[in-house]
């Protein structure tokens, strides 16, 4: 029994030793892509949310249309459209990773904007009225009163969206971006092992998302400890 276990451990050690570089490189790309995907996704998302809450229909309608289309079509289709379409339309050669970031963040921004909008609209109308009655402008009231309160409501859903983004980013492997999933496939092909590389990839994805989830949870606790509203 012990011999059989030793045998498997040796095999796995050899496997890891031989291929660990693939996983590390892939993880780097996945982290890089997710990080910028989140940053741009949130930035564009805030912008879209503000557009969608505008009173002017020529600002509101394009934002609504964008959100509906992005949420209503597969990320895979969006990725292909950007990967092949953007260089064709603009005539510019983009680095693959940049196209991946664009696709992922455009997709995420639609979800983020809906999370932000719902968070802002969940704040009682009386808060805005009280702020305005004290002479604050609309933007001051948003900045000091509405957004700080909305942020707390938004955080759990936003954290969830970040986790989704990390996992969904695996899809960029289909256009040949060397992310963790792509490298995993490479290892499967090279080692003739169909299963083990997937276990390694799953563990790495899980470590990333679990860390992220803990970080967001900590932030949530810190924020709710900063005041005594319960």
């Amino acid at each position, binding site marked *: 029994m012990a011999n059989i276990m030793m045998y498997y451990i040796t095999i796995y050690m050899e496997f890891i030793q031989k291929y660990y570089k693939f996983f590390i490189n892939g993880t780097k790309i996945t982290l890089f892509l997710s990080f910028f995907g989140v940053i741009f996704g949130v930035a564009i998302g805030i912008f879209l949310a503000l557009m969608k809450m505008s009173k002017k229909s020529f600002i509101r309608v394009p934002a609504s249309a964008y959100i509906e289309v992005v949420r209503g079509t597969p990320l895979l289709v969006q990725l292909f459209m950007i990967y092949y379409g953007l260089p064709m339309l603009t005539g510019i050669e983009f680095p693959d990773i940049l196209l991946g970031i664009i696709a992922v963040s455009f997709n995420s921004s639609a979800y983020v904007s809906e999370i932000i909008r719902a968070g802002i609209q969940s704040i*009682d109308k*009386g*808060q805005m*009225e*009280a*702020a*305005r*009655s*004290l*002479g*604050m*402008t609309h933007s*001051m009231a948003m900045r*000091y*009163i509405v957004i*700080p*309160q909305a942020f*707390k409501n938004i955080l759990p859903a936003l954290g969830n969206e970040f986790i989704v983004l990390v996992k969904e980013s695996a899809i960029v492997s289909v256009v040949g971006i060397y992310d963790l999933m792509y490298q995993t496939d490479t290892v499967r092909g090279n080692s003739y092992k169909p299963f083990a590389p997937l276990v390694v990839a799953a563990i790495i994805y899980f470590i990333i998302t679990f860390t992220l989830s803990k970080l967001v949870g900590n932030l949530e606790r810190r924020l709710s400890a900063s*005041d*005594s*509203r*319960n």
Partner: protein
Amino acid sequence: MIHVTNLNKSFGSLHVLKGIDEHIKKGEVVVIIGPSGSGKSTFLRCLNLLEYPTSGEIVFEGVSITDSKNDVNKQREKMGMVFQQFNLFPHMTVSENITLSPIKVKKMEKEEAQKIAMNLLNRIGLEDKAHAYPNQLSGGQKQRIAIARALAMSPDVMLFDEPTSALDPEMVGEVLDVMKELASDGMTMVVVTHEMGFAKEVASRVVFMDGGQIVEEGSPKEIFENPKHPRTKDFLGKVL
């Protein structure tokens, strides 16, 4: 101080205010009474443009606030408002609630704003709550702080939108006491309320509204002891 001319307000097909003319003078305490849905709260909210009137004009201290060329934020600084639901900012301490607007809108020094806040808190007997959060306070305390918050901007007029309607009965008195003190200091006040005792005691003028119109107005004595219009009689007969 506030001249209202032919004020109309509709929500869709619902005509809530039907041609209100009213003149509120400096130092007056005008109490607006009337049944639910009579448009009294809407009228009050029109005075500082929380509701935008469909037509008509409101002139406050010589400035037409219904004219979009004039900056309504500037005028709102001089009109304090107290809400039924208090609307304190829950993510800020009492002191921050009171000082936020003086600091951000009036560009006051923080120390000065805090001094004003402490003075106001002293006046309402809540100086020990300066660093508490609104959720640690009772309804009556919240509303007194909401009044202090509005006073911190040193307004020329205070608008009260049913300030005691969301309070437990035993807390109504403490809020009314603060309002009475304010009235005796000569503050111009417009109060929408169901507290007939307060109207009798403090009002310089009582306005009875029904169906989006001012039906009758006069001194508390005239309205409560000798109402002329049958709708006023009917209403007072039910609430007194």
